[in-house]
Every structure is written in C-alpha cells, then in structure tokens.
C-alpha cells in the first residue's frame, strides 16, 4: 500500500485539499506500479510557478510549486488533472532511473534543457498512452523550442511521443543530439 506524506497538511494561500492530493498521488503511484513505496510531497504554496523536481530518489521525495498543481482556469484552486500529471511525470522519471537502461543518464542538476525536454517528451507520451497525460501540442511546442522548428524536430518528437519500443537513455540522447545537429 502506498504511503503518501504531504507537506504542508493544510494550506493558507491556496484552496488545496491535502486529502485530495494524497488520493491523487496514491492513485498515480498504483497505476505506475509504485504501490508499495513511501512518497513524500513537498508543496510550496507561496509560488504560483509550475516548477517541480525530485528532491530524493530513495526515499521518494517530490518538491513542487503550488502552481504545478493549480487549475489554470481557476487560480489558487487545485487542478486534478494537472496534479496527477505532474506527479506521474516525476514518478516515471524515478522508474526510468531505476532501470539499467538509464544508468548513464546525467544527474538531474546537470541535465541540460534539450535533453530534459526530450526525456519529458518520452515520459509524457507514455503517460498519454495510459491516460495520465494530455497536451501533446504543448509538449511539442516545448520540444520545438529546444530542438528547432523543423520537420526533423517534429519527426523526432513523434518518435519519442509514440515510443514504439522501450527506449534507453542512449536513444533519447542520440535523438536529441542528432536533431540539434540539423540546426543552422
């Protein structure tokens, strides 16, 4: 059974329901096969930005800005889809890093932006297949910003998004680097 801890337990600047967040995180963890893990969520409610990061892989500690869980149509209120998607994306990266195929992936702190975006594309594509991520066009725009507004970049994006086979870190790195090599 997943054990989710949340910090803080109540909110003053936003109208988030801590129990609802715990339930969403628990549901996502079950779907992704992390049902027996302890997960701690640290939420900075003072920030409406959308930053999120993995503070610790073992045990799992996720740190997010309140904005990453926010309903963009209704600021200060919880956006359930956004919350699930943010948590799922971070957990998926943890799952990737636990596999030998990602042993060579640089640490999060030194991962450059294009590589991070390429990995996120691969992650969001897989989450999309299981109904945990939407906004394919948004991801494509992010990818184009880092890899060029070109046919080559769009082809690379589609490959990562559809990820027909299980990719290794080396594949993601090669796709990203090759794509940027076509930029003038």
């Amino acid at each position: 059974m997943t054990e989710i801890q949340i910090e803080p337990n109540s909110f003053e600047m936003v109208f988030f329901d801590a129990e609802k967040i715990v339930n969403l995180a628990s549901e996502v963890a079950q779907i992704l096969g992390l049902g027996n893990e302890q997960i701690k969520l640290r939420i900075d409610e003072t920030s409406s930005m959308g930053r999120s990061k993995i503070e610790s892989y073992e045990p799992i500690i996720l740190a997010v800005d309140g904005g990453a869980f926010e309903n963009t149509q209704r600021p200060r209120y919880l956006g359930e889809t956004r919350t699930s998607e943010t948590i799922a994306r971070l957990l998926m990266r943890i799952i990737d890093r636990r596999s030998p195929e990602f042993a060579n992936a640089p640490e999060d702190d030194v991962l450059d932006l294009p590589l991070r975006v390429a990995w996120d594309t691969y992650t969001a594509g897989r989450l999309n297949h299981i109904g945990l991520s939407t906004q394919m066009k948004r991801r494509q725009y992010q990818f184009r910003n880092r890899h060029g507004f070109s046919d080559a970049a769009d082809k690379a994006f589609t490959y990562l998004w559809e990820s027909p086979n299980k990719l290794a870190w080396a594949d993601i790195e090669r796709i990203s680097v090759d794509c940027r090599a076509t930029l003038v």
Partner: protein
Amino acid sequence: MRKIFPAEELARDSRFVRQSNEDRINDPRGARVGGSTGEKLSKLTPNLPNGPDRARALMHGIFVGEIQALEGAGRTCYDFETNTDVPFAMKLDMARQCWDEARHCEISVALAEHMGTEIGEFAENTLLYQAACNPDPVLRLTGVNRALEGLAIDVFNTMKEFGSIAGDPVLEFCEDWMLADEVTHVKMGSDWLRELTLNDKERLTKALEFQKVVDRLFSFNGFRGEDDENPIQLTRRFRELAGFSDEEIDDIAQMSREAAAEIVH
C-alpha cells in the same frame, strides 16, 4: 442598445472562465502575468526553463486582450454621439481599429494553437475592457490607445524577440505584423488626444493622469520595464514612432521600477 456596456455582461462561450479583479488582486502570491508571479522576475526568453510555458500563458492573455480591445473600440464607435461628443473621423479610426483587432483575434487563436494552448485554458480578466468604459471619450482613448495599446507594443515586441531567438518564424512574423498595427493604434490615441484637448488644458491633464493610472494598474509589480529582470521589455523606438515623448517613456520605466521595489520591500 444601451451605452457603456458593463464588463460583467460581455458575451463569451462556455470555454471562457472569468477571473474577477478582486480575485486577481487578492491572490496573496502576487499578480500573475504570463505565468510569472511576484517572485523574482526575469526577461521572458526561450532560454528560461519555463520560457515556452510562460510564453504560452502570455499568448492566451494576448488573445483575450485582443477580444476586449475589439469590444472597447467597438463601444467607442457606438457610445458617443458624432460631432457633439467626438468627430466622425475619430469613429472611423475606431472602426479601423475594430478591423485590426478582429484580425488580431484570429491570429492569436492560430498562434495559441501553434503553441499548444487551448481557448479558455487560462482564466480571463476584464481589466482591459474596463479601462475602455470611461464615460469621457478623451480619457477612454488615452487609457486604451495610449496606455494599453502602448503596453501591447511592449508585449508584442517581446514576443517577436522570443520567436526570433527560438527560431520560430510563425511567432516572430505574426507578432511583427500585429506590432505594426499597435503602433498605429497608439499613434491614433496620441493624435486624437492632442486634437480633442487643443483648447482644454484641464481635460488634457485629466486624460494624462488617467493614462498613468492605467499604466500603473498594468505595471503588474514591475513586469514591464527596461531592466533585465523585467519579463516584458519597454520598447522605446516603437513608442517614439507612436507619439510618446522621451519624458513619457522615462515615466513609465520609472513607474515599473517603483512597482518592482514595492514587491521587494
């Protein structure tokens, strides 16, 4: 048809979600512009990790701003009597502006889609339209065409540069075309302000004060200015072309610095 149409009754379909001014101002985390907050700001460029997402949110803000600018210019055509309140030629300028704004709405929808944003994805605030509800046509024109369209010059130029740096020709050229129209709109405001207050210094002073109030409201905690930390960069050259004096541009830059300082302290 009634005159001075209230913002609460502007027609929108079910995709749009309205955020009241009270909710926006009372957000203890600071005013939000283009995805940024009262936290440390920085110039909006693609090089920021969240740059594309901030640009996406700003694009949606531009889109709803274009709708409200269209509604505002349209109301100015209707709310005032020809010749007694305003000259026919001014209404003609406002009609031309409606045409431009309608085109900008279409362009903004296409750009938003290009950036992966859905209509109504972000809340809409009607502060812009409310500035277009002033019962004095001179104050309305000053608030909208000089303050808000002036802001549009800064925003579009920043977005144009964003597109240029990112290598995104669609964003770069679309923003450039809209920017050209905005310079014209601001010039209309400058010309009509001068024309309508030619023999009325008191009205001119009131209009410029109203413009400052609107400029201040849209300074959003110093998000627009000339320093590196300002997400939106004040665009001196285009403002000069639109009839702003150096002194007026200096005032806006100073206003932004003061607004930013209020956040820090």
